[in-house]
């Protein structure tokens, strides 16, 4: 242990602790800007670049960055001396001198770390006038970039490279011209970006934001010729409340349904329903492949990779074009829902496909890009018309003078609203795998599963592996989030799958969809994601039915419409295929 003094307060911390953490332990909050840590998720951004966290250390000639300086025995630290405050203010003034001060119109206003800091430091004018950076604005289907606002904290770069290994973004140029950008300042859409949006989730300012589709949805609702159907993803209900001041981990399923109804959606359905459908298809596909492999069929590939996460799907299409036959061909729950809504349900209620608008509420930004994929359109009409993020839904609710807190608890509409606990846990890392095991086990062994809580598949580790005993047949599964973790497993499988995995769940975002890029900003507080996870399993535990194959409305639709999982009709509507989207060199 090391003893030191911070702001005249004696503090004792473990060796190797930074001044920042030591201060926090002592209840002293030193402001930071570039520093960002997702505790327990191996995400740490500590370039020591912004210099906002500087403190005075007695005996040291210059100020020390608290985030990067380790404590030393007998150290005397001042976090708010006149020298420190002057330096900190000057540094923030410098940042603001190269920042378009358009807070009123900025999408990040109210959620902006720079704005908060400037407010806290009482900055009222910027003494430095000079050149400001100007960059082209750029947008993919999911992510908007306005690099004039970039403060070079490099969080996005760290996320894109270290955690996701996507490598779309890098710091480029140097000095005043330094900025984070795709290669050659190309549009992000032409880069290796897979639209996971985690760069947006960690951006402290408004440099990276989502593509806002609220106006499109409002327009559709206002159009009397349209039947607007909404579906809400599992992870939304455990996070939406945060936007309305509720405690993280509040479950707002009923209030959300009520709010959606008041917003004017004609049918309020649940993506959880199609998550159950996904389990039926994917589980069957898994068992089919295992059967084939055990039967000696060399064309069948194992492990099967989940395909619910659109960021992950783009990732392997771009990076592993030689391994397209590994992932499950099952569409994601969003797209299954869209396909069912625009075919089965539209037919059922007698609405033409063109007159139905399917909106999804997702914790995700990649879903926007997924919805726009050509293969999910019929004659140019997409199965899912608009995908809104949790944050957009919150804005929409606020825009319409509604307050989620005041909403009564209401149920989803029928028939695409009924779901099981298995679908609920899709929102957390390991959830899809657990749901699949619950069903596959019973289908495969024809026995009832005694304990359906697979604790080994739960929790925050980026990589989890387990062997599940399917009545004598050991099934090896892995669960990963963060695409770099996925890359490692993919490469391992390419090298012969030495650990003999049968099934691998991959989610791009930290903690799974609950940590998605469309969720309320967590600002690096990973306890928020943990609370969403706890809420997810709480909701599961409270559900009367917790296995997908026991969902009565799923059983009904197979009986009525699809026949059997992985049958002809399902292949038509519920399965997809993948494309080689890697970069190619062509000889001239």
């Amino acid at each position, binding site marked *: 242990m090391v003893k030191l003094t911070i702001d005249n307060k004696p503090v004792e911390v473990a060796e190797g602790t930074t001044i920042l953490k030591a201060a926090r332990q002592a209840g002293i909050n030193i402001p930071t800007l570039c520093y960002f840590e997702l505790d327990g998720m191996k995400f740490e951004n500590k370039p*020591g670049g*912004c210099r906002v966290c500087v403190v005075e250390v007695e005996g040291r000639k210059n100020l020390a960055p608290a985030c990067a300086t380790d404590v030393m025995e007998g150290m005397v630290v001042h976090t708010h001396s006149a020298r420190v405050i002057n330096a900190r203010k000057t540094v923030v003034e410098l940042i603001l001198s190269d920042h378009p001060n358009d807070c009123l119109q900025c999408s990040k206003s109210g959620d902006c770390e720079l704005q908060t800091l400037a407010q806290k430091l009482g900055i009222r004018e910027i003494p*430095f006038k000079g050149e400001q950076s100007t960059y082209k604005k750029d947008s993919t289907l999911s992510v908007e970039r306005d690099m004039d606002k970039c403060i070079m904290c490099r969080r996005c770069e760290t996320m894109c490279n270290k955690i996701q290994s996507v490598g779309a973004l890098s710091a480029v*140029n140097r000095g005043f011209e330094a900025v984070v950008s795709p290669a050659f300042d190309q549009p992000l859409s032409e880069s290796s970006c897979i639209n996971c949006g985690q760069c947006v989730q960690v951006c402290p300012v408004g440099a990276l934001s989502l593509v806002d589709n609220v106006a499109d949805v409002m327009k559709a609702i206002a159009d009397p010729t349209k039947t607007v159907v909404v579906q809400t993803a599992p992870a939304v209900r455990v996070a939406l409340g945060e936007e309305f001041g509720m405690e993280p981990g509040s479950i707002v399923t009923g209030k959300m349904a009520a709010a959606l109804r008041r917003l004017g959606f004609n049918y309020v359905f649940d993506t959880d329903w199609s998550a159950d459908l996904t389990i039926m298809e994917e589980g069957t596909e898994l068992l089919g492949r295992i059967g084939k492999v055990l039967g000696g069929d060399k064309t069948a590939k194992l492990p099967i990779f989940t395909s619910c996460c659109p960021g992950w799907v783009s990732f392997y299409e771009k990076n592993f074009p030689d391994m397209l036959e590994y992932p499950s061909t099952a569409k994601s729950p969003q797209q299954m829902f869209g396909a069912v809504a625009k075919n089965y349900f539209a037919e059922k209620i007698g609405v033409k496909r063109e007159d139905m608008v399917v909106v999804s509420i997702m914790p995700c930004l990649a879903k926007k890009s997924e919805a726009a994929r050509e293969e999910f359109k019929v004659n140019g009409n997409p199965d899912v018309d608009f995908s809104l993020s949790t944050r957009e839904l919150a804005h929409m609710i606020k825009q319409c003078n509604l307050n989620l807190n005041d909403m009564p608890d209401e149920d989803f509409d029928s028939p695409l609203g009924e779901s099981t606990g298995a679908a609920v846990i899709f929102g957390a890392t390991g959830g899809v795998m657990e749901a699949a095991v619950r069903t596959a086990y019973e289908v495969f062994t024809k026995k009832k599963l005694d304990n359906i809580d697979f604790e080994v598949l739960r929790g925050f580790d980026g990589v989890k592996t387990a062997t599940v005993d399917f009545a004598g047949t050991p099934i090896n599964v892995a669960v990963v989030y963060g695409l770099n973790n996925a890359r490692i497993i993919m490469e391992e499988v390419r090298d012969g799958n030495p650990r003999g995995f049968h099934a691998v769940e991959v989610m791009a975002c930290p903690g799974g969809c609950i940590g998605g890029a469309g969720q309320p900003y967590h600002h690096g507080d990973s306890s928020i994601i943990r609370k969403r996870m706890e809420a997810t399993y709480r909701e599961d535990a409270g559900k009367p039915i917790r296995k997908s194959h026991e969902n009565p409305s799923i059983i009904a639709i197979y009986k009525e419409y699809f026949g059997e999982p992985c049958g002809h009709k399902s292949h038509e509507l519920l399965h997809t295929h993948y494309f080689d989207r890697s970069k190619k060199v062509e000889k001239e």
Partner: protein
Amino acid sequence: MAKYKMHVLVCGGTGCKASQSAQIVDNLKAVLAEKGMQDEVQVITTGCFGFCEKGPIVKMMPDNTFYTQVTPEDARTIVEEHIIKGRKVTNLLYTDPENNEHVSDSKHMGFYKKQIRIALRNCGFIDPENIDESISRGGYEALGKCLTEMKPEDVIQEIKLSGLRGRGGGGFPTGLKWEIASKNHADQKYVVCNADEGDPGAFMDRSIMEGDPHSIIEAMAICGYAIGATKGLVYIRAEYPLAIDRLQIAIRQAREYGLLGQDIMGSGFDFDIELRYGAGAFVCGEETALIHSMEGKRGEPTFKPPFPAVSGYLGKPTNVNNVETFANIPVIITKGADWFNKIGTEKSKGTKVFALAGQINNVGLIEVPMGITLREVIYEIGGGIKDGKEFKAVQTGGPSGGCLTKKHLDTPIDYDNLIAAGSMMGSGGMVVMDETSCMVSIAKFYLEFTCEESCGKCTPCRIGNKRLCEMLTKISKGNGTMEDLYELRNLAAVIKDTALCGLGQTSPNPVLSTLDNFWDEYVEHVVDKKCRAGVCKSLMSYEIDQNKCVGCTACARNCPVGAIKGEKKMPHTIDLAVCIKCGACIERCKFGAISIK
């Protein structure tokens, strides 16, 4: 083997090469061959002699005649007159500016009198491409002594006792640095030679590598032995093709002789060296940035600790020293710490190489004992200010240093005194300025450099230096206010206090030191809108003296913007609103009618 009676040393440093010294060598050899004397007189291309002002230099041995500003055509004269007839070629001799007398022996030249050459001991004396010449000067004997007679800790102790401090700028005690690296255990450690010399106007490291590459190789091997590293890397600027070439040749020769490679001199110690190329980033002189660059990344510095001695190249303990530091090592080992630490001042031992440049008579590379005064350097070695003008300031330490003035002339030069005076040793650039230099512009020049070379990682350097530079531009344009001067000082102080790396932390020094020493000149720019040196264009206006102008139209014809009007044979006038102050008119006027106000 021919027994040469006479050696002709021709400088092959970059400066002299640029003035066709290679052609001089060819011509000398051709004329000697023509006279059948190729076996009597040896022509050797050496490294830099230092006296670049008067280059190309040719030195005749053994009579020690020093020829300056030699042209290829002079080769014949030198052979026919000096070599054959034994008559000195008077017009090629150095002329002492004091008494206009010819000086033939460099020892009697003011430029060399006060110099002590340790790091430069072999520069301009041996053929750097011939290892035998290095060996005959005792090259690799220090390494041999370490490997056979000393334990690694003895070597470190010797370096510690010598008091040698890093010559790259920071002045960190070299022995201590080695000790830290030696105490960190790892399966692999690295010795890195920082040859990414980037200070504009400093070229000592290049000269050492070009003139005496073997001393660097030897020193790196000694360091490797001392800290327990078997691999050495030289991080060298790609802009130094000649130095790269000579180092590669030297490394190859050392390997052939078994002085690099496995089991060196039968000691069981293995060591080898590879080159890594810089790609044009000043910040890579900072050791953490340098290491990232060697790893194939953007050369951005990271916060220390961890120091490279703990976690450096590829995460392994790495000792980084600069070229000049290494060049001192073999001498310290051979002659002993006691010999070395008698030279210099109490806290700064040995010598320092400076690149003397600017408005001074003797531009060149000098090596002087620590503790020498600026006055001695400028007036005795440097031969005083060019064209008899008045000394105004000397800038030391490059973009990290500051400007010293008349009041510092008698300050003994060492690490601590320079810092106390608001400058720093830096890598040894020393730029002398006379009254024609504007101190606001000089500060701006350095800030422009820093802005261009900033990596952009930390806010104070990325944006702060940009703002400093903009404020200086505003002042030099005559738009500054007194508030700007106060803000300039505050911002400079904050940058110094908060920047991430050494580059950023020292980048405001040129501003702070000029503010301290030339406050009046700043105030003049701001209040009187005047630039006394006549450098800031916006603060000047051109005027034609109506009495002197004869109406020759030369000025009007040469004005690029047509700002000058007037009838032929009638006095002309300048439209100041159009004038871009390029000075073309003033140069063309034969009647002295145009003046700057």
